[in-house]
């Protein structure tokens, strides 16, 4: 897996270790919701729900947007996947380039040997 995402994964797993937060994700999978909606649904104080959403947001699992006085939460998963796909495509580009560069380096090594000018390092 792509290296950059390791810390993200750690954060994701930590975020998912809590039953309420898993419930919130499930809920947001059905429909976007405000923090107030979520607090009511999970029978929790606004402050408590804010904290949970904060953890999910930090892990990139949820995104929030404030419109007027209401903060709406939605699943952030897709964005995370898009970012990983973006990095992977970029990696493939460089991988293809570097495969070709490998060949150029091999060719240069071969030439040096043929020239009999191989320097001992």
């Amino acid at each position, binding site marked *: 897996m792509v290296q950059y995402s390791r810390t993200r994964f750690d954060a994701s797993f930590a975020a998912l270790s809590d039953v309420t937060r898993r419930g919130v994700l499930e809920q947001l999978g059905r429909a976007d919701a405000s923090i107030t909606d979520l607090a009511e649904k999970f029978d929790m104080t606004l402050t408590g729900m804010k904290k949970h959403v904060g953890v999910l947001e930090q892990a990139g699992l949820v995104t929030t947007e404030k419109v007027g006085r209401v903060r709406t939460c939605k699943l952030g998963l897709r964005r995370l996947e898009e970012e990983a796909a973006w990095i992977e495509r970029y990696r493939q580009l460089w991988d293809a380039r570097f495969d*070709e560069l490998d060949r150029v380096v091999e060719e240069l090594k071969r030439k040096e040997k043929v020239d009999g000018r191989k320097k001992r390092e």
Partner: protein
Amino acid sequence: MDARRESEVAPMKNRTTVERKSERELVVTRTFNGPARLVFEAWTKPELFRQWWVPKSMGMSLLSCEMDVRVGGRYRLEFAHGDSQSAFFGTYKEVTPHSRLVWTNEESDEGSVTTVTFAEKGGKTLLVMHELYPSKEALDAAGTGAADAMGETFEQLDELLVTLGASVGRP
């Protein structure tokens, strides 16, 4: 001397990693099975550079490649992709033989600064390419642009690499 024995040691294909270090930085790493002076040569001699910068599988061709590799020297690469053409150009800011190259990308106001370092160990070279963009948006746009440009042909890439590998006898 003992060229036969060495040629039988098939070099392994090394892994390319890409890491987004921060909102504005991207780091690409790869190890090459050769000394730094040869890898450096491949990055700084146009006739070598053009052999690898645009893999055949990419569906693009390099029309021209000019590189004046010295501090303050400029480079210009021109590509054809289908009916369209594009150019990449900039200036070399640092040139330290066999160990470090820094250049600017000046084709847009939001161009990045690229730093490539070559670290040799045990006859192999660890290459680290670091790109610093002026903003998060510039990095997002550049990456998406590059990925989109390549994306069309990427489906064929694996297939083609296998074919290329087989026909050229690549390990």
